[in-house]
């Protein structure tokens, strides 16, 4: 049972990165568009993400609920030591979700539109930045439960060069996913070309950010190379991800939209496999002490059992309808 719950946790994190990520990315692309093309970018993107944006963010809630029901010690450790970045991320989520909806549902289109758009763009960058910071802090062992000073416990637990680099990397990945996703949603050739270009820029940015992460890990003595190259599975995943980059570039030139989505999704999945494989079953590494393992820190067996049942039952309802939603609003049926 515990393995079922862990699988769901992993899957919802992955789906949040992929779907929520593409969603954040839409705002990030807007952020990095020239003033002139912003308007165009926005309309295309709104059509693409409008119907599904609410569902995209449900994965985060599922992950959080699994954590606090199933693994309360892990949830509370994060809540206590990462209070500040979590709060900033929450403010980002509030700003982004409301700005997106208000922009579309404001019956009068006036100066406020600019405020909504600005809020949407900035929060689209800040939220994934802090999500990345939180993830980086959880895995890199910067949380120090023995800290006695305020700053050590609540600030330097997350404000580290490594976490920041992971944050930046997350932002670029989101932008990349969005660009690839939207290529398939565009109708006109000019739009297609524009988003193909954006995809190229974003993938280069992601590579640079990845290099930054490695450089800082090296300087800060974080055993990132060991995590990624310490076992066969991770090495294979990383190798595949890198190899598929070449394939992706080729597909970008030929604009094979379906294939591109699959490759981009696979790359992110492979990266997540690579990084979690070596860490498994530890979710949070702590400074100078044993990390928090999912296998040692779960709630009572009865709880895990009912949680697993609830998740499975839920999937039976959710997955078919979600697919139908995605299918119905995909560009093909629109005609």
């Amino acid at each position, binding site marked *: 049972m515990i393995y079922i719950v862990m699988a769901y946790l992993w899957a919802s994190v992955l789906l949040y990165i992929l779907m929520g990520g593409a969603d954040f990315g839409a705002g990030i692309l807007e952020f990095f568009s020239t003033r002139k093309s912003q308007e165009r970018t926005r309309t295309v993107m709104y059509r693409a993400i*409008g*119907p*599904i944006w*609410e*569902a995209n*963010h*449900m994965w*985060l*809630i*599922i992950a*959080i*609920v*699994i954590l*606090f*029901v*199933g693994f*309360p*010690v892990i*949830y*509370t450790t*994060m*809540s*206590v030591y990462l*209070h500040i970045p*979590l*709060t900033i991320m*929450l*403010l980002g*989520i*509030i700003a982004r*979700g*409301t700005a*997106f*909806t*208000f922009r*579309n*549902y*404001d*019956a*009068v289109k006036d100066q406020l539109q600019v405020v909504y758009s600005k809020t949407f763009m900035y929060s689209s960058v800040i939220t994934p930045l802090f999500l990345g910071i939180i993830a980086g802090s959880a895995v890199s062992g910067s949380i120090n439960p023995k800290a006695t000073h*305020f700053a050590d*416990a*609540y600030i330097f637990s997350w404000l580290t060069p490594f976490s920041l680099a992971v944050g930046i990397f997350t932002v670029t990945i989101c932008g990349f996913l969005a660009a690839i996703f939207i290529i398939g949603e565009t109708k006109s050739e000019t739009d297609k070309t524009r988003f193909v270009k954006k995809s190229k820029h974003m993938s280069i940015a992601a590579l640079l950010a990845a290099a930054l992460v490695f450089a800082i890990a090296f300087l800060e003595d974080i055993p990132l190379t060991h995590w990624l190259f310490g076992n066969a599975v991770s090495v294979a995943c990383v190798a595949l991800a890198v190899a598929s980059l070449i394939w992706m570039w080729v597909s970008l030139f030929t604009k094979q939209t379906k294939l591109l989505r699959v490759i981009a999704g696979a790359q992110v999945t492979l990266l997540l496999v690579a990084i979690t494989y070596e860490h498994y079953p530890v979710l949070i590494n702590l400074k100078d002490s044993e990390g928090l393992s999912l296998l040692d820190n779960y*709630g*009572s067996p*009865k*709880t895990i059992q*009912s*949680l697993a049942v*609830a*998740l499975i039952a*839920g999937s039976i*309802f*959710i997955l078919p*309808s*979600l697919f139908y*939603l995605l299918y*119905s*609003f995909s560009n093909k*049926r629109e005609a």
Partner: protein
Amino acid sequence: MDDFIAARAQMALSLGFHIIFACIGMMMPFFMAVAHYKWLKTGDITYKNVTKAWSRGVAIFFATGAVSGTVLSFELGLLWPEFMKHAGPIFGMPFSLEGTAFFIEAIALGFYLYGWNRFNKWFHWITGVVVGVSGLASGILVVAANAWMNSPAGFDFVNGQYLNINPITAMFNDAWLSQAIHMILATTVATGFAVAGVHALMILKGKNIIFHTKAFQIAALFAVIGAILQPFSGDFSAKDIAKRQPAKLAAMEAHFKTEERAALIIGGIPDEEKETVRYAVKIPGALSFLAHGDFNKEVTGLDAIAKKDRPPVAIVHYAFQVMVMLGVLMLLIALLYLFILWRKKSWLDKRWLLKLFVAAIPAGFIAVEAGWTVTEVGRQPWIIHGIMRTADAVTPMPGIVYSFYIFTGVYVSLSVIVILLLYRQVKMVGKLYDKS
């Protein structure tokens, strides 16, 4: 303000904010379903316009409800880690089911809002109903979690350890049913009166009369049904509390001394030092009757409860009075409206009747906030009734005060924007939909 108070205030603020959007998110889909149904059946285009106008409003509320709800699921841990560490696995069951309900709601909403003219019209209508049903289900589930804090069940508390956890028993605790019924009725009443009132206001202003009259009729129907049932359910809740949480009941009623033939105290200023209530109207025996169904039964007073285990009396008492008073007022309006429908149809477009409904716009929501204040403040000093104190649950991180200020700012600005947007929606009705 110290950090503990700030944490409580932040929690109260976030919940008090969320509940308004949650109420509307739970009830409006049903209003829409009725209007939509009438359109499909009668082919009267006004009903379609009403449905569409409402659905635009609902989208605004949904987004705000969803983000404020997301904030809450983190805040439970950010502010009350010690509580969540122990309570999470016990009262988490409703939350994990709620996840499913939310998901279905979000998916159905996508279909509904973006599905006009795309699907079979009845399939489209059904997706709207699904939005409402799953919203209601998630509301009931969260309330069950809250009921567990009032009436803990599903574990054995031995030497500070939480053993033999059974999340299913915890979900179906003693308080869940009475709270869930009362909450569903409350959303019906609050949303019904608010929406009916807004449309009444527009009729008074002479704008798009046909449109607003049809909208008013649907909303008023819900409001009336809810308002008539609500006091019965409230009485059921009060009897329940008399058994489970005598301290809360005593605080609600400002009942300081344990006695038989206890008097019902209406109004008044409770003095917690001297343990008396000044300037109140007292009805002998009525409290005994309301709490236990017998004019002579003994009702536990605050004197039977150790000072350190008492909730703040004044706030709880005032909040309770406000809720009940508004409940009675709305009941009267509902009865009057029914009478008019039945006997005096000619009064239906009297201005004073419409004005009455306009006056009642905020009443339901004020009652909701007051009711939650009774439930939550009345539970103090416990976060889990009789098991864990709120003070022991709060986060060790200092500086929560600042976080409280920031969230206050955010919620205030959001409220301002939402009100502005609604105002614009209503103002634009003429341009967007109604040609009459």
